């Protein structure tokens, strides 16, 4: 599960370089994000632009990461593709997370 990070001041952008976060890969995703959570930065933007598919296991993993990061780090989302956006919307989790169209717009937002 490849997740590439870039720091911008106190903000860390974590870009998932896999096309699926699903039942087969959810645990590896969580492990990768826990490792990033032990690093610097108090605001993490999860860049999902490369993720074409996410199921309920993937969703649960993203929620688990947000919970594990709190309270010292926040987790926001960026670059949701159509399938990922649909899953977040169906489960009303799009109301729980701060979601940005893209990483640049996330970095511009306060």
């Amino acid at each position, binding site marked *: 599960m490849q997740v590439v990070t870039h720091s911008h001041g106190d903000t860390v952008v974590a870009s998932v370089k896999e096309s*699926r976060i*699903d*039942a*087969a890969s959810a645990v590896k995703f969580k492990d990768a994000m826990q490792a990033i959570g032990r690093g610097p930065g108090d605001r993490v933007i999860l860049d999902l632009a490369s993720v074409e*598919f996410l*199921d*309920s*296991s993937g*969703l*649960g*993993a993203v*929620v*688990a990461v*947000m*919970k594990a990061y*709190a309270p010292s780090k926040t987790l926001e989302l960026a670059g949701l593709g*159509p*399938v990922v956006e*649909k*899953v977040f919307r*169906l*489960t*009303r*989790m799009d*109301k*729980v997370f701060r979601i940005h169209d893209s990483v640049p717009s996330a970095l511009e937002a306060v």
Partner: protein
Amino acid sequence: MTDFSETYVFQSTYAEVTQTLATLMEELRRVGVDAADMATVEIVLAEALNNVVEHAYAERPGNCVRLQCTLCEAGLCVEILDTGAAMPGGQVPSGKAPCVDADTDELPEGGFGWNMIHALTEHLTYRRSGTRNTTGFVIPLDGLR
């Protein structure tokens, strides 16, 4: 849209679910199903098939899952057959949506799957006969209307 009816038989692992769905998606693309409908199909089938792996077979490998998909007037007609444990209470879970209006530390990390299946399917049925579970539903496809 051309006729489409396929049966897939595969082992009870998450990896084989993913592989089978990739094959199905490619075949649906070839018969003209649009991207939005394909997204709906993949979301529903990933949940239903992963449930078979996780709950019917308790993640034990070496068991069989049979998936049958047919394009019909109403949409994609699906039948899933397995020989795992019966659904609790002999019926499909109601799929009550987990509550998301909670504090961060109380947010649900699971229980989303059946709610999504109910939201995206019609004519959801479940039958237990001997050692077999048969789960059926129709996924309405907007592109067919």
